[in-house]
C-alpha cells in the first residue's frame, strides 16, 4: 500500500510539472501583457517589467518561477500590487471550498438517492419523474438556474438573500445552483449502474433466498453500483471546491473562481499560473482520495495488490 502511495505521489509530481510548464508557456504565448490596460509611459513600463522579472528571457523566467514554486511561493499578483498569489488563494479558497463541499455533499446525497429509486423502479412513474428532473438539471445552465432561484426565493418569496455572504443561510442558493448539474449527472450514473447490477445473478439469488428487497438493494446492489460515482466525484470535487465563476458572480461571493477568469483577461501571469497549479493540486489530491476509496470498496482489487 505504501509503495502504491509513493508511486502515485511521484507520478502526480510529474503531472504537476507538466501542468506548470504548459501553463507557463501557453500564458506567455498570449498576445498582450499585464499592463496593457493602463496607458503607461515606456519608462514606467520598463521599470514594472524589471520589477517582476518580465524583462528576462522566458526560459530564465521559467526557471525562476520553478525555484520559487519549490518554496511554495506563487509570486506577486501583477494586477493587484502588493498582494501575493498565496494571499489571494488563502483568502478566497475557503469561500469557494465551503460552497463547493456543501454542493458536493448535496449532489451526492440527492444523486445517489434519486438514482437508486429510479433504477429500482425502472420505466415506472418514479423513474420517469426522476429522469425528467435530471434532464432539467442537465439542461438548465447554471446562470439561468441561479437567476431563477434568486428571482423566486429572494425577490418574490424573500426567504433567502439575493447575494453576498454574511450568514450561513446565504450559502443556500449558491449551493443549490452549483449542485443541480452534478446531482443530475450522478442520478443518471447511479440509475444506469443500478439497472445493470440488479440484473446480476447475485441479486436474483439473494431475492430467491428470501432476503428483504430493501436489504438486497442497499447491502448487495448499491455498493456494486457506487464505483462509477466515486470515480466521477474526484474531478467533480476539484471543480466544485475551487469555485465557479458564474455562481460567484451571480451571488457576489468573494471566491476563487472569479479570480481565475478575470486574471486571464488581465494577463496576470502569476495569478493565472498560481490558480492553475492550485487547481491541479486539488484535482490530483481529490482523484487520489477517490481512487483510494474505490480501492478500499473493492475486495478483488484490494487482494490482488496484496494489502
Amino acid at each position, binding site marked *: 500500500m505504501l509503495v502504491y502511495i509513493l508511486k502515485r505521489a511521484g507520478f502526480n509530481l510529474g503531472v504537476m510539472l507538466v501542468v506548470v510548464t504548459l501553463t507557463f508557456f501557453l500564458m506567455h504565448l498570449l498576445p498582450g501583457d499585464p499592463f496593457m490596460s493602463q496607458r503607461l509611459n515606456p519608462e514606467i513600463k520598463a521599470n514594472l517589467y524589471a520589477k517582476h522579472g518580465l524583462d528576462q528571457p522566458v526560459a530564465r523566467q521559467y526557471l525562476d518561477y520553478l525555484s520559487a514554486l519549490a518554496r511554495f511561493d506563487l509570486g506577486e499578483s501583477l494586477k493587484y500590487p502588493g498582494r501575493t498569489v498565496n494571499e489571494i488563494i488563502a483568502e478566497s479558497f475557503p469561500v469557494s471550498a465551503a460552497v463547493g463541499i456543501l454542493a458536493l455533499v448535496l449532489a451526492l446525497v440527492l444523486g445517489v438517492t434519486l438514482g437508486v429509486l429510479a433504477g429500482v423502479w425502472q420505466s415506472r412513474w418514479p423513474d420517469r419523474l426522476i429522469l425528467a428532473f435530471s434532464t432539467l438539471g442537465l439542461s438548465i445552465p447554471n446562470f439561468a438556474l441561479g437567476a431563477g432561484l434568486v428571482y423566486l426565493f429572494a425577490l418574490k418569496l424573500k426567504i433567502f438573500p439575493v447575494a453576498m455572504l454574511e450568514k450561513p443561510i446565504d450559502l443556500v442558493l449558491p449551493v443549490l445552483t452549483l449542485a443541480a448539474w452534478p446531482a443530475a449527472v450522478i442520478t443518471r450514473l447511479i440509475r444506469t449502474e443500478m439497472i445493470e447490477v440488479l440484473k446480476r445473478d447475485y441479486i436474483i439469488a439473494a431475492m430467491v433466498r*428470501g432476503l428483504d428487497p430493501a436489504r438486497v438493494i442497499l447491502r448487495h446492489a448499491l455498493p456494486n453500483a457506487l464505483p462509477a460515482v466515486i470515480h466521477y466525484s474526484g474531478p467533480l470535487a476539484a471543480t466544485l471546491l475551487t469555485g465557479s465563476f458564474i455562481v460567484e458572480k451571480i451571488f457576489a461571493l468573494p471566491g476563487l473562481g472569479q479570480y481565475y477568469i478575470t486574471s486571464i483577461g488581465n494577463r496576470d501571469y502569476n495569478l493565472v499560473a498560481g490558480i492553475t497549479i492550485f487547481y491541479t493540486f486539488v484535482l490530483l489530491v481529490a482523484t487520489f482520495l477517490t481512487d483510494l476509496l474505490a480501492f478500499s470498496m473493492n475486495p478483488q482489487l484490494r487482494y490482488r495488490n496484496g494489502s
Partner: protein
Amino acid sequence: MTKVDGLSISIKNKKGTWSLVRDVSFSLERGRTLAIVGESGSGKSLITSAILGMLNHLEGLEGSVEVCGRDVLKASSRELRTLRRNLIGYIPQNPRESLTPTLKVGSQLVEVIAAKTDRKGRECRLVAESLLSSLGFSGPERILSMYPHQLSGGMCQRVAIAMAVVSRPALVVADEPTSSLDPLTKHKIMEVIKGIQAEQGFGLILVTHDLDLAFSSSDQVAVVYGGRLVETGAAEELLLRPGHPYTSDLVRCFTRSGAEKGGSYYIPGEPLSIYTSFPGCRYFNRCRQRLEICETKEPACVRRDRGRVACWLY
C-alpha cells in the same frame, strides 16, 4: 410434496401472444429427485423461474405450483418471501456469480441464516460454521472470513448449497448446479447435494442439459421440448425404453457419443423458434417417426408405463 399443474407461460405484446411454456404438470414426493432435461431455449429455465416464484408478475402465467399445499404462483411478495425462507431452497447456476462480490462469505451466509431461521448474530455464525463443516469444508472460520473471489467455483457452490438447505426446505431447485464446474468438482457437488437430501429428505428438482447427470442422479426424468413436457418417467425406464422419439434421439446421442465407431449421433435440424406458431407437434420437423397427424394436431399427454408421453405414436 411438490405439485406442478398445468403450468403455462406466455407473453403478450402488440404483435400477438407467444406461448413459451405449455401445460407442464408433474409431481414430486419428498426425498425424490426429478431431473428436467432439455436443450437451450426449450423452456426449462422458464419453468424453474416460475417454480421459484420469479415470474409471478407476468400476466401470461397460468396453472399452479404447490409446495406443501401452498400455491407459489398466487403468493403475494410477502408470502413468497416466507415460502422462499421456509420451504424452497435454490441452488444457482453460476456459483461464483451467485454471491455478492463486495461482501464476505460469512456475512452473506449469516444474513441468509438469520432471515431463514430467526436466529441472531452469534448463533448464526455457529450454525454457519457447523453447516460448512458438514458440507466438507475443513476450516469453516477461514472460509467465512473470505470474499467470494477467493473461493473456487466448487467452494462457492457449497456455500450456495448451505444457503439453500439451512431451513430444511421441502423443495430444492437446482438450476444447472454443475454446468460451470469441472468434471471432478461436478461429481463432488452432486454427492454433497445427494448427501444432504438423504439427511433432510427434500424433493429435488434438478434442471440440466447434462443427460449423464440427469440419468445418474435422479429418480424421475422430465424431458422438455418446445416448452412442453414431451415425456416423463422413471429414469431407468426412459434410459432403457424411451417412448417419445425426441427422448430416444437424446438417449442415443448420450449413449453413442464419441465412443462408438462412426462418430457421434446427432439430431438433424433446429428446434422451431418460439415465434413460429405451429399447430402440430413441435418436434415434427426433426422427428424420424413422424406421422401425418403430427403436422396438424398437437398430441395430448397420455400414460405410458409408469410415466406420461405426448406423442401420436401412443
